[in-house]
């Protein structure tokens, strides 16, 4: 439909410079410039290297996205940008660019939440998000279980990792096994040749008194490293495929078990999985089986939409426009620790037009959702 909002989204929270363009729930362009190769020899993302790369890539990536989408910048209804959470210096490049672009074009600016964007991107794949949706976000930076009754206004954290993110655990084990960085894809590949039941690695935080929805991967990481070291110390060959498969099984088992349990406890019938680790084939397979057994509809976007990208930011921005949420102010901050409970950062002074912001919508609907917690959907 031509009257659906046409929004350009900018994402620079980590090492990908992403610019996406969507019309409503339709993906028109998803341009990404990655600096991952520059970080590989450091075994992790180096913030200053990422920020420098964002500056270089920003304008060319915007232009590539516009060309790919075949739209004129003047036709856009708004510019969305990741306001946080993420690496402070990296976020600032995207936020500054988005402000400049929106101001120059005379369009409203929407500073949005990175985590909510990871959830909202699924609208581009599977249509409107069911309300509520349960979301499991797993990547090198996050491992969270989130309940989203309204992705533009009401996102509730149920649990998250208390130490390493799931993707970080993959990176660290890949390093112990000398498999390079990033570790997720290579472990996924090698694990296919191995036996997931070969070694019984621990499942963190799964005891009866542990927090039901929190995750911990630090103990698992240490257990795997010790197991490998013991083999090496004994002069035996390390069965890389079996270690990879058994480690991956431990991660995926806990993630899917807790996600399904959260759906059941909260009476939610839809689970979406996003973030870079959602590309993991074993995670997808196990989530499919367990969701089917529990009568839950699973939604997992294609891998390119699961990793950080601009389309997810545009998708959430388009939803903000469609639902009449307020735009952000020109002094919007890049907030490295933006709480997940803030799906976007509206102008606190939205009534005044003194700052010259082209407000296209009122903000009267921003707080319609009460935060009463328990049993809303049971």
């Amino acid at each position, binding site marked *: 439909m031509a009257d659906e909002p046409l929004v350009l989204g900018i994402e620079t929270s980590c090492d990908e410079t992403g610019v996406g363009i969507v019309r409503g729930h339709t993906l028109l362009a998803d341009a990404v410039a990655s600096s991952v190769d520059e970080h590989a020899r450091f075994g992790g993302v180096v913030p200053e290297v990422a920020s420098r790369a964002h500056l270089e890539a920003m304008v060319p990536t915007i232009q590539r996205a516009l060309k790919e989408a075949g739209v004129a910048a003047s036709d856009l209804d708004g510019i969305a940008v990741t306001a946080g959470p993420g690496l402070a*210096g990296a976020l600032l490049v995207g936020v500054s660019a988005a402000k*400049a672009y929106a101001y120059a074009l005379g369009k409203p600016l929407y500073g949005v939440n990175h985590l909510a964007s990871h959830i909202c991107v699924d609208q581009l794949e599977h249509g409107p998000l069911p309300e509520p949706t349960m979301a499991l976000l797993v990547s090198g930076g996050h491992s969270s279980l989130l309940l989203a009754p309204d992705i533009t206004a009401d996102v509730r954290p149920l649990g998250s990792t208390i130490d390493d993110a799931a993707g970080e655990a993959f990176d660290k084990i890949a390093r112990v096994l000398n498999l390079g960085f990033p570790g997720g894809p290579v472990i996924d590949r090698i694990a296919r040749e191995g036996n997931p039941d070969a070694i019984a690695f621990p499942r963190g935080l799964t005891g009866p008194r542990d927090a039901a929805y929190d995750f911990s991967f630090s103990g698992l990481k240490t257990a795997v490293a010790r197991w490998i070291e013991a083999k090496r110390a004994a002069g035996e060959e390390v069965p890389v495929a079996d270690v990879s498969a058994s480690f991956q099984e431990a991660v995926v088992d806990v993630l899917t078990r807790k996600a399904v349990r959260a759906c059941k406890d909260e009476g939610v019938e839809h689970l979406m999985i996003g973030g870079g680790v959602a590309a993991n084939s074993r995670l997808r397979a196990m989530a499919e089986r367990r969701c089917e057994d529990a009568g839950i509809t699973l939604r997992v976007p294609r891998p390119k939409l699961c990793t950080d990208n601009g389309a997810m930011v545009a998708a959430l921005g388009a939803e903000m426009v469609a639902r009449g949420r307020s735009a952000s102010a020109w002094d919007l901050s890049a907030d490295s620790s933006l709480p997940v409970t803030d799906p976007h950062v509206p102008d606190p002074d939205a009534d005044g037009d003194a700052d010259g912001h082209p407000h296209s919508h009122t903000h009267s609907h921003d707080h319609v959702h009460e935060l009463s917690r328990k049993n809303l959907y049971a």
Partner: protein
Amino acid sequence: MLLLALDTATPAVTVALHDGSAVIAESSEVDARRHGELLLPAVHRTLKEAGTELGAVTEIVVGTGPGPYTGLRVGLVTAATFGAALGVPVHGLCTLDGIAYAAGEAGLEGPFVVATDARRKEVYWARYDDARTRVTEPAVDHPADLAERVAGLPAVGAGALLYPAVFADVPPGMPEYQSAGALASLAAGKLVRGEELPPPRPLYLRRPDAKVPANYKVVTPK
């Protein structure tokens, strides 16, 4: 010509408009921690003060540093994105050159040194024969290491004020931070004379702090 000048390489967030003969509006605020928040409102204020809008701008010039990176990039990415959206050329100028030009306007004759705060007990600096003529490449150094090279020369800028033992002669009434008005005047003069300006590329002068991790740490207890 309507030239928009921005610079975020020093603690000042500074914006100016120049019509080819003079600065017609300028807005500067000093807050080293809020470059990202302050720049766009400053652009808006400056345009309003001049009674014009961004669409009327025909050229952009941005200070390329050297300066603390996070703030520096705010100006550079803003200038680049404006340029792309408006379809107008974006030029760069060394931030120290703008401060030198302002020192000249304030009456300082050469030779002299410009030094800004590079943090970590270092300064960004360059030597000038006069307000328009830089004779060394911009560099980052510990003040003590350049004492001999700047001895006897007057110095301007916040970096000079910070290290009086090395920069003994800081004349009064000289600029501490960048002013986009000075940057705009310098750039407009060059453009009018048909000189080519440098591209808007950051002068970082330091490599990113990044260490290749030492070998994997064994976790098995000894």
